[in-house]
């Protein structure tokens, strides 16, 4: 299929819409996650979603995206809670806690997934698309769910932009003027969970964290303003999402997630090397030029 055919095709329209919405949402929320140095948290939450998806299917026997994504969100939430408890109660360092929670939840997820896909019912077999994402499987209902979730996540970020910005830059000062920093932090993390959940169908749990980190890192290279950074990250995320979805759609047997992340990597590399002021090439040139 060529691009024109793709865009007139029903599946392709769904896929294009869904994957660009995913990119916009993870780009926006990813900026805050990266600036708060919580990129790895995103990785844990994404991996933790897998057992949630499997359990939701096991309990309801439904493959409606709303049900599965709800399961994913709840599991992500539980993982975040477990993380907090481990850091506070067991006095482990944060990176150890992240490692433990990620591997435990993901191990549980893989166990459930293997059980569901091998027990021989055709329905369960499709669940493994959540590992690396399969944009071609998106139907109109999925896109609708994605659109609603994206609207919630981006709307809330726009509404509390000023508060999120202060929280991210200077939490101490934020608390001193009476902002409920704990609650805001929970809200922001919950929105990151929403962004992750949106990406599960197209990018998959394994690579989802890159969709949070990549657009933000690339956007940061081009600007020194948070507002511009958020807008650029949304754009980069959408471009990568769209590219990944269309490439995987135009060839057989190419999983969407990895192609999306490879497209994103190109944007990140280009930005890291060539962005004015911060880009490596310009910094080299400036140094040698005196």
């Amino acid at each position, binding site marked *: 299929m060529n691009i024109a055919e793709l865009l007139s095709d029903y599946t392709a329209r769904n896929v294009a819409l869904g994957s660009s919405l995913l990119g916009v949402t993870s780009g926006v929320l990813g900026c805050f996650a990266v600036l708060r140095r919580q990129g790895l948290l995103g990785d844990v939450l994404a991996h933790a979603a897998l057992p949630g998806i499997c359990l939701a299917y096991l309990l309801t026997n439904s493959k409606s995206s709303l049900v599965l994504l709800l399961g994913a969100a709840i599991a992500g939430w539980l993982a975040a809670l477990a993380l907090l408890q481990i850091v506070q109660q067991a006095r482990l360092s944060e990176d150890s806690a992240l490692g433990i929670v990620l591997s435990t939840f993901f191990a549980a997820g893989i166990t459930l997934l293997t059980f569901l896909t091998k027990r021989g019912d055709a329905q369960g077999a499709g669940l493994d698309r959540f590992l690396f994402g399969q944009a071609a499987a998106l139907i109109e209902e999925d896109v609708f769910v994605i659109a609603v979730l994206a609207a919630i996540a981006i709307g809330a970020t726009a509404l509390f932009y000023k508060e999120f910005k202060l929280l991210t*830059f200077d939490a101490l*000062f934020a608390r001193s*003027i*009476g902002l409920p920093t704990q609650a805001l932090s929970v809200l922001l993390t919950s929105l990151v969970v929403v962004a992750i959940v949106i990406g599960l169908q197209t990018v998959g749990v394994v690579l989802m964290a890159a969709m949070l980190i990549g657009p933000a890192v690339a956007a940061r290279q081009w*600007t*020194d*303003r948070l507002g511009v950074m958020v807008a650029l990250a949304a754009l980069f995320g959408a471009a990568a999402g769209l590219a990944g979805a269309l490439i995987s759609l135009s060839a057989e047997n190419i999983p969407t997630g990895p192609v999306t992340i490879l497209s994103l990597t190109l944007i990140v590399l280009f930005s890291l090397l060539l962005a004015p002021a911060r880009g490596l090439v310009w910094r080299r040139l400036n140094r040698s030029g005196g």
Partner: protein
Amino acid sequence: MNALDIHDLTVSYRDKVALQDVDLAIPAGKLAAIIGPNGAGKSTLLKAALGLVPTVAGSVLVHGQPYAKQRHLVGYVPQRSSVDWDFPTTVLDVVLMGTYRRLGWIRRPGKAERARALACLDQVGMADHADRQIGQLSGGQQQRVFLARALAQDASVYFLDEPMAGVDAVTEQTILSVLQDLARQGRTIICVHHDLDSAPQYFDWVVLLNMRVIASGPLATTFTADNLRKTYGGSMRAAIAHFQHFEEELEQAKR
């Protein structure tokens, strides 16, 4: 009335006591320094007064009322090292954060807030840097931006955490004259200060702290060799040598 009243304040981090039974009263309009060795709990005292760290016991009153009711009267300058200066934002944006409490939820700063923030930047001699990214500033300039943000809060009691640590001479003089102006207007300055040499020139009230309050009162009767010895343990000379060493380390760390 006292600007700050602290009663029986105890703070501990996990099992380690950081502050014990702190009693403190600072009258309004004073330029007060909190002085003590490393690990004496100076920053912790500020943070506890501002409700930023959990307290085990004790009460904090600002102008006679609990702090939670008096936030509108308080301005705060955290330690410069407590934030990431590579954050994508401009000097003016940071100063505007001083207007956020009055703006309340969701509302964005407008023209009036911008004008106010620019005026505060002007007070610290940074108005022509308003559009710079904060990472491009020197340490002293960053400190002045933090002070400007506190000025934008238009507070009557200011808490400052080591505003003069590791800054250039111009910045130190600018900060001092701004603080003196504030005190002249009847506002209260409570400032963690690390330099024993300059303390008697800059401040008119001192709090000597080493997990407990060793002494607190007007400079002349409180900043005595005897009290300093009690605060720092060994001899004065050792204490001063210790601080010089500390400053050198700080300088080296910056390079």
